């Protein structure tokens, strides 16, 4: 569309001086517009110890469930590190489609150069979650929590409950 703008600028001017100014300003506008378009994706690395789903792939947006809240990451996000809670990571790819994955836990790092690394312990596609199996596992883990005695057992059981609750919420 910028070619049309340049042509309009040429047609609408009356003197060569004005034409040059308008052309320069239009060109500058176009350059800014093109720059924003190029900066609309950022490289994402989303991986677990056993599978690398995205390896510095260009994506538009990523939503992650973290201990500081559920937040979305766009290009040029402020650098931060976050710990992931059991929940859904949803990725909007460059093509525009949204992919959702359930993660059990992990970390997310956003750097100043806009690269993002999301490393999760276990990743599975949301479509692969069996609601009934997850609900049954949730019941089992709740009773394990109730009967846990030591602090370490209680913490481990609580983690299980959290993960299965997350899965049931998504299934």
């Amino acid at each position, binding site marked *: 569309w910028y070619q049309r703008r340049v042509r309009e600028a040429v047609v609408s001017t009356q003197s060569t001086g004005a034409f040059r100014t308008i052309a320069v300003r239009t060109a500058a506008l176009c350059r800014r517009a093109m720059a924003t378009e190029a900066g609309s994706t950022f490289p994402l690395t989303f991986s677990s110890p056993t599978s690398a789903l995205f390896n510095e792939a260009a994506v538009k947006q990523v939503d992650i469930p973290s201990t500081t809240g559920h937040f979305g990451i766009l290009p040029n996000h402020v650098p931060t590190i*976050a710990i992931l809670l059991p929940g859904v990571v949803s990725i909007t790819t460059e093509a525009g489609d949204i992919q959702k994955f359930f993660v059990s836990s992990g970390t997310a790092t956003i750097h100043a150069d806009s690269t993002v690394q999301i*490393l999760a312990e276990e990743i599975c596609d949301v479509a692969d979650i069996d609601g009934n199996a997850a609900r049954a596992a949730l019941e089992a883990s709740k009773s394990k929590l109730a009967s846990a005695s030591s602090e370490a057992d209680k913490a481990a059981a609580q983690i299980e409950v959290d993960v299965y609750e997350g899965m049931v919420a998504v299934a």
Partner: protein
Amino acid sequence: VVGGGHLGKQWYQRRVGKQWYQRRVRGVYGTGAESLYTKNEFESGEDKLILAISSDRGLCGGVHSGLGKAIKAAHAEKPITKTIIVGDKAKAILQRTMGDTFLATFNNVGKKPASFTDAINVAEEVLSHEADTVDIVYNKFINVVSYDSTTKPIPGVASIEANDAIYNYDEVDSEVLKCYQEFTLANIVYHSIREQECSEQSARMNAMENATRNAGEMIDKLTLAYNRTRQAVITRELIEIISGANALE
């Protein structure tokens, strides 16, 4: 010749091939995990803990001895006070000179590829000891025929907090940083253990190929010598018989 020699070169190549494919996947995870340290300069603390990664199985060329050499060189440069050893081979190599620095050793390493749970166990052991920096020493896989012993320094929470670069990162408090460090340490340990396994596997393959080739050459040479000797004996007997027959005439 040794180990899987009877199963053939193809078997070994298939097994190593699987490792190489998994390594590509793991490489993504491993480099992702170290991103915070590679993109920012964190100073190594004074108090170092060395995590040496090897395995229990030998017959893999210079893999374990290379590791031992690197650690002994570092020890000579500046005495190391704390080490955690993964694998009996490294333990055997370092026992005499650095046996008193061992905080923990892991064995039963190398029979099966390590899982993330194994890495978590090692990481937990490392975290239970006080140290400013953890140096992970392992063999980095370069390609099929070469590997190199590498030291990867992982700064501790105190080192990171002391450096201003971390404050470029938003919303970072001690709790988050500690959690992040623990998980990242487990990731990097996992990556290092698997890299070491890959290096070992390819080193073992090369060592076996060399051994097979040397044995083949020796067999050829000895076969020639055997045939020559046999023919010499036959020729001597013939000469004796013929000269005996001639003498009778």
